């Protein structure tokens, strides 16, 4: 509680003190200094500073050197000036709710009531703006700008990273290229070595070949000379004697063929003579047989005739075969010594044996019988027939004597025919013998001719020292082949001589000898041409490969040089640049993060302020009820206040007739009662602990009844809420009413200033 107000120098007051009680009334007429006191109180409690409206107003009215104090000094400057003027001080008779900042007076009430004059919704708006993602706001513009800068920095960093990777890749390629280059060099070197070796090898090969050829040529010279010697030796064969030889051979062939024909004719003649001889012999036999038959027949016939006349006797000789055979053997044995031509004694024995044999054969070889025909004719006939049958084995068909005689006569004639035949055969044989003799002579002539021709050929061959014609042919062929060989070799040597640039065999021989003397024997085994060709083709291939490798190596070297330039030139600086970019990116990131965090934090703060706003709305609902209750207390509940929510448009005062009016349409007395109720309610809400209300002619528009209601309300507030009350009035009736209402009332009666 403020206990004292001291005005050292304020307006017309000089060194004046006023003691203040819980309820104090300053009473005085107009111009008695009540307003000055009110201003002094404002000055002390609020101490408005600097250029504020109140400070300027006080200064212009009371000067800079004004001086006043309150006791206890805690109160000095303890109340914000807005709170005092707009809430705690109800002055000038006409009560208002001074809405200084805002057309929405209820927002101002809220501000006044809860925030020490700060409008939470205004802060919420600010925070919402800070949290907004609306691109028109500065922070979003900034964010966008930062993000685009970040993007471009990141792109730059990525580009640089890629560049680094590229360079490092190039470096790796460089190493690879270098390695490949070295490998190529090695390969090349090896190939070149191979190549050189092959070349050497080839040279050695060709030298060996040359020597071999030289030696071969020398051998050929020898051969030619040998051949020439041989050909000379066989000069006889140089001329072609083949036709001559052919003629001789033909001649010889002809005589030979002629002779062969003669031999054949001779043979033929001999055969024919043999045939004739055989025919003659057979005729001889037949004639002998027929003669025998005829003899027999004659004998029979004679016998028959004799029988008819006399018996007939007949002697018959028959050979003894065994004896004849023994004699033969003996004769053969006797012949042996003669054939063998042994000693003469043996010849005698042989002769003796032969004589023995001849005697034996002659005497004992034949058996002689004598037959007697001493039968009658029939018997004789029958016997004749039997005999005939016995003699000849044939049967005489004739039965009759005559028949038989004729048959026997026929046999006898047959014998004559056989003799004729034999005669004929003998002639023929004679003829054949003659012809044979002729043929033999011809054959002998032909033989001699043939032998002469052969002899002539043999003589011809003998001149060449040859045994036969074949040898001549062989020798001739050999001669020809040697000559041909010599000619070939001579041609070859001629060509070789041309190649070696010399003429003649001896010159060539000299040249070749010098060549062999000049070169040494190669270590390599001379190979055949095929192998040499293969080696050469391999060498050519190698040469080509070397060429290709050389090109590749040169290309690789060029690339390496280029890469090395790139790598050396740019990689070293990149890490620093990257780090710098990363730092800048991180700074931007941080700033963007901070901006985003700030936005998020602002959103959180706004959310809290919105919660606060909601809380305040609940408090205000309570306040509305409070105001209504206090309004009722002032107006004796004749009017009701409707405040469904605490908003200016929502407030309505309902009169006894039930008519509802908004504040603007209220009568002055009713409006003042409402405002006074509101002021008291708000003042009580606004200040914790000790409070103060300054009332300057507060009830001018109120009638006596409402004034009393208002005073009773104030007394209640004073008592319940520990609120110090200060009244300023010129109205004695109000003073009376106060005296009646307040138990303890301090009264200061003010005189006109300067009259105190």
């Amino acid at each position, binding site marked *: 509680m403020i206990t004292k107000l001291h005005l050292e120098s304020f307006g017309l007051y000089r060194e004046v003190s006023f003691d203040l009680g819980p309820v104090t009334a300053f009473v005085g007429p107009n111009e008695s200094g009540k307003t000055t006191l009110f201003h002094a109180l404002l000055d002390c409690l609020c101490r408005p500073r600097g250029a504020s409206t109140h400070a300027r107003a006080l200064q212009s009215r009371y000067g800079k050197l004004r001086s006043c104090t309150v006791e206890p000094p805690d109160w000095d400057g303890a109340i914000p000036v807005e709170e005092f003027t707009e809430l705690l001080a109800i002055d000038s008779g006409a009560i208002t709710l001074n809405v200084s900042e805002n057309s929405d007076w209820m927002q101002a009430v809220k501000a006044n009531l809860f925030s020490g004059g700060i*409008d939470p919704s205004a802060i919420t708006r600010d925070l919402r703006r800070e949290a907004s993602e609306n691109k028109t706001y500065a922070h979003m513009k900034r964010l966008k700008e930062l993000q685009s800068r970040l993007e471009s920095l990141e792109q730059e960093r990525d580009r640089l990273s890629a560049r680094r990777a590229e360079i490092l890749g190039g470096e790796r390629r460089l190493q690879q290229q270098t390695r490949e280059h070295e490998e190529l060099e090695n390969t090349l070197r090896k190939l070149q070595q191979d190549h050189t070796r092959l070349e050497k090898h080839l040279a050695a090969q060709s030298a060996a070949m040359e020597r071999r050829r030289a030696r071969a040529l020398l051998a050929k010279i020898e051969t030619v000379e040998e051949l020439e010697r041989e050909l000379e030796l066989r000069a006889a064969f140089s001329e072609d004697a083949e036709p001559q030889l052919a003629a001789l051979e033909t001649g010889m062939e002809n005589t030979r063929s002629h002779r062969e024909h003669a031999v054949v004719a001779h043979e033929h003649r001999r055969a024919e003579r043999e045939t004739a001889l055989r025919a003659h012999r057979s005729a001889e036999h037949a004639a002998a047989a027929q003669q025998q038959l005829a003899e027999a027949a004659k004998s029979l016939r004679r016998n028959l005739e004799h029988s008819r006349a006399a018996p007939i006797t007949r002697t018959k000789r028959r050979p003894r075969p065994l004896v004849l055979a023994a004699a033969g053997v003996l004769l053969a044995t006797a012949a042996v010594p003669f054939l063998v031509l042994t000693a003469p004694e043996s010849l005698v024995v042989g002769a003796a044996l032969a004589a023995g044999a001849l005697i034996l054969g002659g005497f004992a070889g034949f058996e002689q019988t004598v037959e007697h025909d001493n039968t009658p004719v029939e018997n004789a006939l029958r016997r004749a027939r039997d005999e005939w049958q016995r003699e000849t084995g044939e049967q005489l068909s004739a039965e009759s004597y005559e028949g038989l005689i004729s048959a026997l006569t026929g046999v006898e004639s047959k014998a004559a025919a056989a003799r004729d035949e034999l005669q004929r055969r003998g002639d023929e044989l004679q003829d054949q013998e003659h012809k044979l003799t002729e043929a033999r002579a011809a054959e002998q002539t032909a033989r001699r001719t043939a032998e002469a021709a052969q002899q002539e050929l043999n003589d011809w061959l003998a001149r060449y020292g040859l045994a036969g014609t074949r040898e001549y042919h062989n020798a001739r062929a050999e001669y020809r082949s040697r000559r041909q060989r010599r000619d070939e070799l001579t041609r070859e040597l001629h060509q070789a001589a041309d190649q070696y640039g010399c003429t003649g065999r001896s010159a060539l021989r000299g040249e070749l000898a010098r060549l062999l003397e000049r070169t040494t024997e190669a270590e390599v085994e001379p190979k055949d041409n095929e192998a040499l060709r293969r080696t050469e083709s391999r060498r050519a291939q190698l040469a080509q490969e070397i060429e290709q490798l050389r090109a590749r190596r040169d290309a690789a070297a060029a690339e390496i040089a280029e890469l090395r330039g790139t790598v*050396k030139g740019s*990689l070293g600086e990149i890490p620093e640049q990257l780090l710098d970019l*990363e730092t800048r990116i*991180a700074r931007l990131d941080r700033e963007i993060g901070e901006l985003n*965090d700030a936005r998020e934090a602002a959103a959180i*703060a706004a959310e*809290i302020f919105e919660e606060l706003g909601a809380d305040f709305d609940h408090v205000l609902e309570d306040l509305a009820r409070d105001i209504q209750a206090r309004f009722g207390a002032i107006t004796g509940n004749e009017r009701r206040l409707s405040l469904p929510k605490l908003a200016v448009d929502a407030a309505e005062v309902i009169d006894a007739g039930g008519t509802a009016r908004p504040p603007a349409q209220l009568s002055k007395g009713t409006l003042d009662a409402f405002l006074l109720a509101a002021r008291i309610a708000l003042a009580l809400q606004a200040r914790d602990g000790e409070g103060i209300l300054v009332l300057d002619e507060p009830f001018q528009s109120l009638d006596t009844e409402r004034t009393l209601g208002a005073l009773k309300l104030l007394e209640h507030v004073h008592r319940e809420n520990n609120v110090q009350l200060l009244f300023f009035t010129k109205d004695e009736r109000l003073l009376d009413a106060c005296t009646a209402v307040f138990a303890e009332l301090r009264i200061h009666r003010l005189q006109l200033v300067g009259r105190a």
Partner: protein
Amino acid sequence: MRKAIHAADLHVSRSEQQYSFAVFDELIELCRRNEVDLLLLAGDLFDSYPDAVALAPELREHAAALPEACRAVAIPGNHEELLRGEEPLETIDLGRIAWATGSPFQRYTVCGIDLFAVPFRSSYADYLTWEIPAAGEDPRIVMMHGTLAGMWFSGLEETEESTVAIDPDVFGRIGASYAALGHIHSAHTEELEGCTACYPGSARVWRRGENDLRAVQLLEFQGTALTRHERLTLTSAGRYRHLELPVGIDPGKVLTHVDEHVFDSADFVELALSGLIETQAQSAQLVRKLQHRLGPRVRRLEIDTEHLEPLSGFAALPLARHFLEHWNRRWQHAASPREKDLLLEARRNALTKIKHRVEGRR
């Protein structure tokens, strides 16, 4: 089997000498415990050239505890170049630790490992011209200090510092199966073609944002192959802990909030205060109280009041009060760090708006 430890960015400094050497000692102890043949220090062993000059003797003493069989090679990083001027690096004697200053690289053969140590240079752009001997039987390791470029982004903080880009191509050229990298303070392993490139991260917490546990890399080689690599945590390095402290109507509440957290004495704690407070004086008082309360419990404490703005009458401002009530409800239900970040941002925004409105009315 051969073993190596790969560490980087120790940043040994006079200003944090005790901490620096505690971490270094733990590293030596890890070498001892794992019977390591080779210790690789991939740059920024010291925080600056003057630090290197001043602390080399002490470092030599600590390095003397390295196991007998263990060889150690360090390359200079960009921090050894800081404040160097024309002074030579070669003269700094690190005792047991070989100081690779050859250009463009120095080659070591240790226990059948063919090591290419590349000291820090203002550019590695000439790497294409480096004469790299043909690879032998031994596995190759390349040690470098800088930022791998063009693969993954290591974070703005790492690149804002003077850095040099490394093209991973260089590993391939050297034929390394492992790239021991330094400079990036957060751990990262990248399996490249034929090469494992690894940042173990800084061995100690050097600046804000280095959230994870600090570690080094343990390598195992069998024959010519890298058979295993794993992280070994350095407990003495502590952690970086960032704590968001939204200041409400009652600023004192943040003190109890801080008390709820358990910190290691090696931790680097950063408190981010945000919100509105009645007066600047109240803000300063709050900072003093926090420092008093938390300062002795951690290695390093930083309090960020950039987002804590004074507004007189703030506590009595109904709108602010109502807002904070609602906000607190959301904050308590926020699950993900992102959600929390957004809520904190929303809070800052809203309170700033209230403050501006209030001030505009006065």
